[in-house]
């Protein structure tokens, strides 16, 4: 009996103990975090001890969170293997699955960060990133040189640099053969059939679409859709952004900046003019009936079918649908971007000089065990030989150098570069897409972007496109746009952080909601009702504290002008 009692006691003690363990493990989060902080501090202070480590190749792994959906590279990926052989570094990627805000919320709540993460203002705000400026000064001469001109811009409002922007650092005027931004897109065949006209205004644009649609009521068996507008979730610019471009302004998001002052344009008369035009063409049946109920997948499916004649969108947003048209050999169904304006007296400003992309790129988190090693790795990889490997690949395998010293590709190599499966095994895009990178030209004059190398672009053009461009006398489709003027130092306004939970952000959310609700209503209304819907819409906007939103943007723009001096 006695032994029995004891074993019961022992058993229950064990239970209690294990419970206690579980409980203490739950509470331990902050301890480990502190420990991590200490180690980062140690790493910062004790550089002397680890200085030598850079020379020998000892393997280390960096865990990386990428804030967008993506695919894991293959385990035997050519480029990652090379990085590992030469520097010892290997990457463990985690890609976003689901909603970014939700994911970051969970990560922040638990301070559960990998070594490196893609930039996000939420993360910076929550203190997830360590300041990088001292690390770079001490250990990363190449990075320092790379970012020299942009050093002030990269600083957060507290004076620290938390993330390394991935795009927008140019060492020369960029060669560009591909336009990725916003435009009114039109199917090439529509232009071809109209006799390759110069389309400059909104009215001309809808005229030739209407004419084409009248002639061809179906395309490959599907009813022709004249104009498509996507307004789904965060991809809402298809409906919102066009008016600012039509009056000759670049993409500043929700505001137009005139004489240095930002103002919303959603309720202005020039915006009304655009939506009234849409209302008018909707009466003529040009706009897809489902345009405001469709989701992104349905939108992409429609474009891939080749039945959509035109839309306002950013090129990268529907690029995969266009790729699918190319794969189907329907080249006449792919698109040309047109920089439309209200009337020909307005100079179009669609093409812009790329601004530094402050919302993207890598930051090193407080949990990183050895930030110094990471920064040294990034410093190694920004060197020109590595950059060539990242963009062009391996000489002899992925490209060749011709007699003039220019990099070129064979058709086979070119095809591989558009093959997603091949890329997973032979390109390091998951890392390189977000890493600091050289843009412009290498020291030998070759372009840093294979697709932008002018002779390479020409050689890769399909017969159809060669002929099409010849009709206009252009070298590439980018020539449809006017040259971009020099950017205002504070540009672009869309990158202003509205600060989570602030009045400005709430007002902006509400205004977006009103636009999502009233603009479709106005466009689909009978012409006679348009004015009354518009009036109701502007009245509702008037009720919001728009000033809070505008003030916040103007304040930041002013701050940028004061602090972002570029040498």
């Amino acid at each position, binding site marked *: 009996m006695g032994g029995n009692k004891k074993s019961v006691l022992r058993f229950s003690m064990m239970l209690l103990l294990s419970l206690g363990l579980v409980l203490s493990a739950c509470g331990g989060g902050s301890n480990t975090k502190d420990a991590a902080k200490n180690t980062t501090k140690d790493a910062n202070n004790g550089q002397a001890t680890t200085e030598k480590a850079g020379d020998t190749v000892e393997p280390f792994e960096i865990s990386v969170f990428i804030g967008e959906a993506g695919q894991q590279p293959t385990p035997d990926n050519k480029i990652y293997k090379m990085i590992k052989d030469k520097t010892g570094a290997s990457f463990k990627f985690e890609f976003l699955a689901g909603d970014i805000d939700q994911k970051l919320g969970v990560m922040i709540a638990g301070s559960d960060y990998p070594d490196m993460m893609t930039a996000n203002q939420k993360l910076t705000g*929550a203190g997830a990133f360590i300041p990088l400026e001292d690390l770079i000064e001490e250990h990363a001469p190449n990075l320092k040189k790379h970012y020299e001109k942009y050093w002030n811009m990269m600083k957060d409002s507290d004076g620290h640099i938390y993330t390394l922007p991935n795009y927008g650092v140019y060492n020369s005027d960029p060669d560009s053969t591909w336009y990725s931004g916003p435009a009114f897109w039109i199917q090439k065949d529509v232009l071809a059939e109209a006799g390759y006209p110069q389309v400059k205004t909104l009215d001309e644009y809808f005229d030739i679409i209407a004419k084409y649609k009248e002639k061809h009521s179906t395309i490959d068996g599907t009813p022709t859709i004249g104009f498509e507008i996507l307004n789904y979730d965060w991809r809402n610019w298809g409906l919102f952004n066009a008016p600012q471009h039509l009056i000759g302004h670049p993409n500043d998001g929700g505001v137009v900046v005139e004489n240095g002052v930002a103002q919303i344009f959603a309720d202005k008369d020039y915006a009304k003019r655009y939506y009234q035009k849409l209302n008018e063409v909707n009466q003529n049946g040009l706009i897809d009936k489902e345009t405001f109920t469709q989701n992104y997948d349905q939108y992409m499916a429609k474009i891939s079918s080749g039945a959509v004649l035109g839309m306002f969108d950013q090129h990268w947003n529907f690029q995969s649908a266009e790729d699918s048209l190319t794969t189907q050999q329907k080249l006449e169904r792919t698109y040309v971007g047109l920089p439309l304006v209200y009337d020909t007296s307005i100079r179009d400003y669609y093409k812009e000089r790329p601004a530094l992309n402050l919302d993207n790129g890598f930051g090193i988190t407080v949990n990183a065990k050895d930030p110094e090693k990471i920064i040294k790795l990034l410093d190694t990889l920004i060197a020109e030989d590595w950059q060539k490997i990242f963009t062009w690949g391996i000489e002899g395998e992925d490209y060749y150098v011709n007699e003039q010293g220019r990099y070129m590709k064979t058709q086979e190599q070119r095809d591989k570069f558009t093959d997603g499966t091949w890329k997973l095994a032979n390109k390091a895009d998951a890392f390189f897409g977000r890493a600091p990178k050289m843009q412009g030209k290498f020291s030998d004059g070759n372009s840093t972007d294979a697709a932008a190398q002018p002779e390479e672009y020409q050689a890769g053009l399909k017969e159809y496109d060669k002929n099409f461009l010849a009709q206009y006398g252009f070298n590439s489709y980018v020539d449809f746009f006017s040259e971009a003027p020099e950017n205002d130092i504070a540009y672009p306004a869309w990158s202003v952080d509205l600060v989570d*939970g602030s009045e400005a952000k709430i007002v902006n959310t509400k205004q977006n909601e009103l636009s999502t609700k009233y603009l479709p209503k106005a466009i*689909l209304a009978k012409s006679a009702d348009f004015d009354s819907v518009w009036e109701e819409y502007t009245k509702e906007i008037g009720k919001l504290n728009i000033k809070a939103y505008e003030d916040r943007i103007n304040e930041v723009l002013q701050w940028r002008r004061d602090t972002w001096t570029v040498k």
Partner: protein
Amino acid sequence: MEETLRNGRTVRKPKKHKKMTWSLIKDQRQLIYMSVPLLAYIVLFAYVPIWGWTMAFQDYKPAKSFSDQKWVGFKHFEFLFKDDSFLQVLRNTLAMSVINLILGFVTAIILALLLNEIRKVFWKRTVQTISYLPHFLSWIIVTGIVATSLASDGIVNDVLLKLHLIKEPIQWLSDGKYFWGIVGASHVWKEVGWNTIIYLAAMASIDPALYEAAEIDGASRYRKMFHVTLPGIKPTIIILLIMSIGHILEAGFEVQYLLGNGLVVDWSQTIDIFVLKYGLAQGNYSLATAAGIFKTVVSVTMLLFANWIAKRLGEERLL
């Protein structure tokens, strides 16, 4: 309840009323030890999280310690109740919830009754399997199917056109007056088979003698359904109803979010979507918590109310 207590006592020899004494505790310590893990589990996962409710009264900033948070009183509740669209959002939530509740109950019970009447086991199984399979699809897939079916060249419009019921395709998703119906119908399609399972189980436990007796009295099939089967599953229905009423403010989120668009926003936005937009998406976790508390309070009240009604009607109760 008292009866069972009395029964329990008689079985365990009539003793004097047992008090909580040390000797009793010592006597039953094995039982107490056994209940410790469960108790700890409940405290840990059901009561400790309530501590998080303090967030609703702060301007909560993540990664800051509790003492560093700023207390703001009822600010977030005020924001919630003062917002113009909140009433509308509440209306939508309640309406869609009630529609789902009633449609869900009625269709599930009817399907269960019908299935119960099928004598060939093979067919019964087949129908049941087919009807509960959609339960395993996630809402994102279901809404995809719904959106495709309701497109202008989707199956719904096709069928209606072929039957000459309409002259041109209806834009189902662009008109607010259809929205609640679409949500209700999607719920029925997805969950009806799953919901019948519990009723079928309840029906299986009805004494066959009752059916035989009814048959001898000359009851038809419908009479038997009405007077034997339905009363037989009444307790199950009541309990399930009470439980669902507790979830009255959970009209769901995915369907409305994925099927909603600018044109129907006045009918589609629910509390959860509102909270997502103004709470989570803006890093305003306090507002989200305040909304959560509001929902919980309403739910508990409704649950107690339904339970009280059931008691007044002399029916089975949950509590």
